[in-house]
């Protein structure tokens, strides 16, 4: 009985770890699709415009953005070596990383919301390794495979 109890605990620990890894894989897939879609778009634009846009009008990944109302007053202190910054806002703000910006730009085809046209799904699958294509299809149908399948094994 003691051994069965230990095995049961081990099983639950593994199920939890698998759930986390599936969520991580889903996020990495979204990142990969958004990233490669962005690169493809930029390369097409560069071909059309016969060259990359002006350097001071582009922001290379990775980056963060902080957005706030235009009326916000921001007090910013910077160390002389630019290693430290301190921002004080008199209003609320939001912080987003570059992947979130790409998702908002539609670079992940709305897969994070489980909505994606068949055309976009085809494109999205072409951006990931073959072994991961089925996971992309599942994301598109909104069937969250993060929790799927484990129920079978747990029963």
């Amino acid at each position, binding site marked *: 009985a003691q051994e069965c109890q230990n095995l049961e605990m081990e099983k639950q620990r593994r199920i939890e770890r698998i759930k986390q890894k599936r969520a*991580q894989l889903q*996020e*990495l897939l979204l990142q990969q699709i958004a990233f490669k879609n962005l690169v493809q778009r930029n390369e097409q634009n560069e071909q059309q415009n016969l060259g990359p846009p002006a350097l001071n009008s582009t922001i290379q990944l*990775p980056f*963060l953005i902080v*957005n*706030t*109302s235009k*009326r*916000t*007053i921001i007090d910013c202190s910077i160390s002389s070596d630019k290693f430290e910054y301190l921002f004080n806002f*008199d*209003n*609320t*703000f*939001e*912080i*987003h*990383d570059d*992947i*979130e*910006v790409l*998702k*908002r*730009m*539609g670079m992940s085809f709305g897969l994070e919301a489980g909505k994606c046209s068949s055309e976009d799904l085809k494109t999205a699958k072409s951006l990931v390794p073959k072994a991961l294509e089925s996971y992309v299809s599942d994301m598109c149908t909104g069937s969250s495979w993060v929790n799927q399948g484990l129920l079978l094994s747990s029963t």
Partner: protein
Amino acid sequence: KSRILVSIGESFGTSEKFQKINQMVGSSDRQLKRSAEESTTPKPLKRL
């Protein structure tokens, strides 16, 4: 007091921390300096 620390460039989980920060900041009951004047809370980013 609660502070949130994020190490930029972490391979995974940063987005969730930023969501938590944005919720914490957006829902804080701190009186905005000019909340009486107009609702100047930032509109969330658009989703194209």
